[in-house]
């Protein structure tokens, strides 16, 4: 029965306390974003060209979601772990499982309830874009919704990891430690991103949720990102189910865990290979110009780019975020190889003459360039196919600079730092206050 599980999570003071703390973190991110956006917007007021750079999705929503990422990473696993571990602390797990008779049902209900608790900060964060609109800001609903959808997926993933930790641990303390370590491992993978010395961890990037969150934050609905989160969450829930199987012992338990890990690897690998991505941003600004995107998708042959750029090179980051992201939207089959990663040589020692060069391959033809410009690279791809570059015009994104100051800024501060956290605390107190017995 879901009501019991929801009560276990939502009538616990700790749930609302974490939600209030998370709201402070998220609110702080929002306030910083609003102030930085305002500072930039003051200088942009003079020119249209600069105004185009003011993108509220990247300037307001994404930094706000940065706070949410931290809050979910810290508190989500704890809420998930508590949902099961508390049954062990209170010696009711066997009773609960035998009462229900259905392990999947117990795990699913626990997960839904934990998600409701861990998702409270998302509800708080969702109020901030509305606040941005109320102070005169602009947001496109579809791109903002996709960005939040990514964080709902992430909340589902971290609570499932917490549940799995709770299922294998003997107490909440053990479960909390294990769950936080599992999430911290994904931070370690992310930390390898900008360091050549950690290039050997390059293959692990596919196992960090951050990369999959990125496409959502950019307003791209990517089936592979949804697939990865679905696979990883489902597999973590399978592991949670195995952990709860108190009737499995010794070799059978080890075999079940091994099978669960195979499911995890298989589900994630399968999920991230699912094709299809849609740019739902205003003016489709994260895509190539429509004609180029349409035509490049039709080019025959396999498209591959070999890049001689190492992890510490800023051009690599720019290439990934801009040109490659746009090319991947048009050509999901694009394969990119980072040659220095494969050699695993630190950049300082990299003496290869071709460093900085990109080799573009289409079918059996190839061309080299040192440019990372998307127009230049797209032109070269069409040249390899023996075709001219299609029409490169794209509807201009107007940009939405906004200076929030005076009374409006005070309102932003009050809502972000006080109203939302206090609301969570008040609801928590109302739901958890002691009740009198009826005579």
């Amino acid at each position, binding site marked *: 029965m879901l009501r*019991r599980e929801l009560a276990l999570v939502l009538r616990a003071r700790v749930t609302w306390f974490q939600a209030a703390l998370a709201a402070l973190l998220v609110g702080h991110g929002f306030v910083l974003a609003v102030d930085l956006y305002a500072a930039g917007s003051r200088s942009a007021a003079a020119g249209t060209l600069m105004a185009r750079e003011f993108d509220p999705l990247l300037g307001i929503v994404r930094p706000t979601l940065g706070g949410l990422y931290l809050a979910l990473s810290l508190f989500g696993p704890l809420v998930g772990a508590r949902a099961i571990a508390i049954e062990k602390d*209170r*010696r009711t797990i066997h009773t609960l499982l035998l009462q229900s008779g259905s*392990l999947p049902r117990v795990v699913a209900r626990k997960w839904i309830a934990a998600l409701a608790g861990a998702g409270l900060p998302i509800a708080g964060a969702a109020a901030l874009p509305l606040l941005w609109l109320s102070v005169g800001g602009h947001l496109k609903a579809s791109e903002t919704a996709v960005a939040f959808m990514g964080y709902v997926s992430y909340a589902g993933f971290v609570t499932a990891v917490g549940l799995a930790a709770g299922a294998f641990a003997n107490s909440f303390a053990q479960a909390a430690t294990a769950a936080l370590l599992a999430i911290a491992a994904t931070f370690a993978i992310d930390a390898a991103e900008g360091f050549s010395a950690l290039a050997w961890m390059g293959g692990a990037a596919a196992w960090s949720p951050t990369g999959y969150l990125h496409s959502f934050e950019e307003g791209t609905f990517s089936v592979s990102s949804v697939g990865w989160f679905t696979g990883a969450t489902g597999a973590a829930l399978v592991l949670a189910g195995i952990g709860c199987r108190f009737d499995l012992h010794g070799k059978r338990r080890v075999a079940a865990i091994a099978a669960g890990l195979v499911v995890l690897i298989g589900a994630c690998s399968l999920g991230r290979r699912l094709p299809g991505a849609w740019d739902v941003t205003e003016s489709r600004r994260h895509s190539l110009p429509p004609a180029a995107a349409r035509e490049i998708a039709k080019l025959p042959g396999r498209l591959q780019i070999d890049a001689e750029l190492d992890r510490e090179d800023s051009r690599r980051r720019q290439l990934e975020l801009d040109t490659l992201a746009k090319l991947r939207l048009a050509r999901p089959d694009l394969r990119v190889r980072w040659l220095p990663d494969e050699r695993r040589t630190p950049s300082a020692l990299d003496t290869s003459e071709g460093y900085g060069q990109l080799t573009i391959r289409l079918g059996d033809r190839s061309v080299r360039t040192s440019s990372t410009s998307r127009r230049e690279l797209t032109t070269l791809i069409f040249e390899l196919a023996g075709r001219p570059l299609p029409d490169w015009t794209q509807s201009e994104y107007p940009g939405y600079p906004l200076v929030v100051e005076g009374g409006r800024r005070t309102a932003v501060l009050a809502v972000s730092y006080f109203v939302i956290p206090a609301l969570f605390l008040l609801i928590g107190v109302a739901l958890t206050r002691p009740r009198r017995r*009826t005579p």
Partner: protein
Amino acid sequence: MESAPATLDVSRVTAVRARRRVLDGVSVSVAPGEILAVIGPNGAGKTSLLEAAIGALPLTSGEVRVGGHRLGGIRERARRLFYLAGEAEPPAEVPVSTLLAHALAAPGADQRLAAALTERLGLRSFRDVPAGALSRGERRRILLFAALVSARPFLLLDEPTGVFDPMQLLDVIALFRACAARGTGLMVIVHQMSDAEALASRILLLDEGRALACDTLDGLRGLAGLPGGSLQQVFLALLRARQPAENEARAPS
């Protein structure tokens, strides 16, 4: 042809926990409508016996069957067994009404018993109160409600009576008897000898993981050579009788 009522059979069960043999070839059966009280000193293996029956403790040998059918996974055990751990506490945050509704929503729960059990266990007055705000005895009554309403053929209860005052205890014993009268078999760990005497159809005496005796109170009295003795006296006599025999066996030849 009507099939014979299923019996819970624990056969020659041996189990090791932390390198210590906590059960050593224990065999016992519980028939429908029977209340088997499990008694023994601390560390005798009482809780381990119940955990072995539900599958939570791995067996190095022996088996657990119901109606001759070996019990498999959780789903299969759940159809036949209800288990309540000794230190179990209902979730403190959850209102009593939600916990009662949860117990009634369990597969096979006997809805007809709900009203009477709520009344007899005195749960009506704190339906809206979170379980954490109740006394230990009141919290235990919520768990007993779940056990008694479950309508599973066998209830395995670890020290369900230890927290009740004498008046409440009489009520709870009456409820256990009524449950047994409906055909449910109960295996109940009891620490207070007087409780076991009042409750049990048969009594299993465990010591150091072994079954010393399993019989009716009169049968145990006969075994101990104490006709008319209390269970307390019988218990001590059987334990003392075992120790000299063991010492003799251990003595160097």
